[in-house]
């Protein structure tokens, strides 16, 4: 159900004509969506009773604290070259004062930590350093994990190991819906996850939970089309999965990418930082690739006695922000103790974190906490 070409102004007029009175909460689950919404100022253009809620859309934010801690220890004690997407380098873990608390700090302390922008770079670094061990700490949702799968399928050097923290997006939304208190009335589904996995992955929202859903791209026009679609569905009582990004998110997704994911990785129960285990929400290397699995190759440095292991930092409400239970500026630390320059929680570190996006969008003041 693609929409005819409309400008953002057309969509805004159509949205106003819907004349909604009751409060409506539309959740997005993609940092790219939240960035477009915030930077284009879309919240201010919608009717006041329509709330746009950023949900679980930031893979860095939910990457287990234990995995980051493990990556720091590997970089420091196993003398490996540790490569990771740049966002991961500044995320702090919970350690005693004076100890190394991020990959950036490990690098400053002499460890060989290198930011990369692509899995291909991890492979290149391994090929260029045959006498060293290279660990690729790979956190990401399906869009990022599929290229990791492609890299594995294409063949990797013997000295390259993967510390995989890949996550699937839809199980987190399913968990919210199954909780009975999802906190939203309609879903805008992520454009590039749908490009890889297929828009159909989001059909469960409509079929099982009877909520409207629409896949959106990243332009204001595509996002407004998706908002219009779900609001119109709420008004009419119709329910269907709309695709407002048909030019890129094709039915069935990218068949090669899906095949590569299936060939190289298993879907497993996985831990989300501050949230807990979500069934079937993570990726792990298949046994055929165990020779490249950093979790099997190296000792586990995680000590259960470490204070606040696995948790968000003290006072940090990132877990609530990720689940869309509060807005970023309702966190107790937002803009005071926690800023992009001195981030405490991962949502203020990552470019896809809602706190960082809101701060960059000009929100600097704390708001009163919402009453659930």
């Amino acid at each position: 159900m693609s929409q005819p070409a409309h400008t953002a102004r057309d969509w805004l007029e159509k949205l106003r004509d819907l004349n909604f009175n009751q409060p409506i909460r539309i959740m997005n689950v993609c940092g790219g969506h939240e960035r477009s919404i915030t930077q284009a100022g879309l919240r201010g253009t919608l009717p006041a009773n329509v709330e746009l809620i950023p949900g679980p859309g930031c893979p860095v934010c939910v990457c287990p604290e234990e995995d980051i801690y493990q990556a720091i220890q590997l970089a420091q004690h196993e003398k490996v070259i540790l490569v990771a997407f740049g966002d991961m380098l500044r995320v702090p873990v919970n350690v005693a004062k004076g100890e190394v608390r991020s990959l950036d700090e490990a690098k400053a302390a002499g460890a060989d930590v290198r930011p990369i922008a692509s899995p291909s770079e991890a492979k290149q670094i391994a090929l260029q350093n045959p006498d060293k061990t290279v660990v690729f700490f790979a956190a990401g949702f399906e869009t990022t994990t599929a290229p990791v799968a492609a890299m594995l399928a294409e063949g990797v050097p013997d000295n390259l190991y993967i510390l995989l923290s890949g996550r699937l997006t839809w199980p987190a939304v399913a968990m919210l819906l199954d909780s009975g208190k999802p906190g939203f009335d309609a879903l805008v589904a992520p454009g590039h996850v749908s490009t890889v996995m297929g828009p159909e992955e989001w059909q469960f929202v409509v079929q099982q939970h009877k909520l409207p859903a629409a896949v959106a791209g990243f332009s204001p026009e595509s996002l407004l089309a998706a908002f219009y679609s779900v609001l119109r569905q709420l008004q009419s009582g119709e329910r269907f999965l709309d695709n407002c990004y048909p030019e890129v998110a094709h039915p069935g997704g990218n068949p090669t990418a899906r095949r590569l994911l299936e060939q190289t990785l298993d879907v497993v129960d996985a831990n989300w930082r501050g949230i807990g285990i979500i069934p079937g929400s993570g990726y792990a290397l298949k046994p055929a690739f165990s020779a490249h699995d950093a979790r099997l190759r190296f000792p586990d440095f995680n000590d259960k006695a470490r204070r606040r292991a696995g948790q968000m930092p003290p006072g940090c409400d990132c877990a609530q922000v990720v689940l869309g239970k509060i807005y970023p500026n309702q966190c107790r630390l937002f803009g005071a103790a926690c800023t992009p320059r001195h981030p405490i929680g991962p949502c203020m570190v990552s470019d896809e974190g809602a706190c960082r996006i809101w701060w960059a969008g000009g929100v600097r003041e704390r708001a009163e906490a919402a009453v659930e």
Partner: protein
Amino acid sequence: MCLAIPMQIESVDGFMARCQAKGIYRDVSLFMMQDELPRIGDYVMVHVGYAIQKVTEADAQSAWELFDQILEETG
């Protein structure tokens, strides 16, 4: 990390393509496009160095315009 940018393919060597977007060049893997291999001159959405989908020239142009606007606003 889910930001994907459209790029135009200028040359291909195996599964690696030299791609260009507004004068910026990158080596891009076409390994995930094996079911519908793009050709020189085609536009692809590129995410973390891998092409994830073909796009039309018009869609590539409008995405580039959007990025220009975002860059202007965020300085």
